């Protein structure tokens, strides 16, 4: 899904969703500042912030926003030891901002 399609989906989305946006990236990261992902109550709807473990962390943070609405920044560290065989060895750090994409669609507006 390209950016234009994601924007159109975001603008017309009826189910409540959380938007995750990479707002800052330093070093080597799989996706750069501006990359986005839409997360619904049952998981990712569209887009990606890079995949792998890092994305799992972001999804977890996004899902919390269905319970409590506060937008926040999640720092994802991809600078694990190279010998660890972890997928997080790209060598970068990224800040991902998570917020309700369409608060008007949530049962209790915040």
């Amino acid at each position, binding site marked *: 899904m390209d950016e234009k399609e994601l924007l159109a989906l975001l603008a017309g989305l009826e189910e409540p969703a959380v938007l995750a946006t990479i707002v800052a990236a330093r070093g080597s990261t799989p996706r750069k500042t501006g990359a986005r992902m839409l997360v619904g109550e049952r998981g990712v709807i569209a887009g990606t912030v890079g995949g792998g473990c890092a994305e799992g962390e972001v999804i977890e943070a996004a899902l919390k926003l269905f319970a409590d609405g506060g937008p926040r920044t999640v720092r994802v560290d991809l600078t694990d030891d190279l010998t660890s065989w972890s997928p997080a060895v790209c060598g970068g750090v990224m800040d991902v901002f998570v917020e309700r994409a*369409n608060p008007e*669609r949530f049962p209790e507006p915040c």
Partner: protein
Amino acid sequence: MNPSPAQVAARVIAATERGERIYAAVVTASPDPSLIGRRRWLSRGRHGGTLGSPSLDGEVAAALPALFPPRESRGALSRDFDYRDGDRPGTATVYIELHGPPAGMVIVGAGHIAVPLSRLGDMLALRVEVLDDRPAFANRDRFPAASAVRVIDFRDPFADTPLAPRDHVVLVTRGHSFDYECLVRLLRMASRPHYIGMIGSRRRVRATHEQLLREGFAPEDMGRVRAPVGLDLGGRTPAEIAVAVAAEIIMLRAGGTGVPLVEKERVVERFFGGRNPAGAAPSRSSDE
């Protein structure tokens, strides 16, 4: 009410369809937690929402021209801002996106190379337009990925195709005299496209430059033309040539070097004391 990401997305779609630039800003961090998530959008003469402080709104608006050069049609970054409301100073980290009408790829000459190139241009999110004077070639069936396909008169090839500095023009007409006519028009434009590429052998390119010189153009003007067009990939087929042209456009937009990454990074040589696995590709040159 604070505009939601979904509402701002609708604004972005409407603005870019009108051919306008639009900025969307959101506070992502601040010692004042009430600002986090506050959002504001700005496009030509219109705006909505607030970052939670009139002074912060003003600081962000004033910084935009320096943060996003006029040629860019897309951008995303975060910056820290200081602001002051009355005697209450504050700081905030603001994430700002620019969405603009996509840069164009105007392909003049609807022949063999135009077909794969129009598809690549579309994949690169460029607005693709194909121009030719032959209706049999300049038709929509041949170019499903193009936003516009136009039958033109080479005496005034860009009459119905407005061009801006952010656009890319690739001259691949069937005859070098047509390429030349387009080139003269392009070089005389007040706001000419930043990428002007022309296909041709070394000999034909040299002949074109000699003709430009006779016409009164300066070598600086000639230097603005990317001819022969494309990176040296060694390809010969229309698809291979189209990839070489698309690669050059990516390189210039993204600020790359065009050098193979294995040679740029030299990981084996740097960290293992070995030789670089791949040497430079043999150059193909011939004297004319």
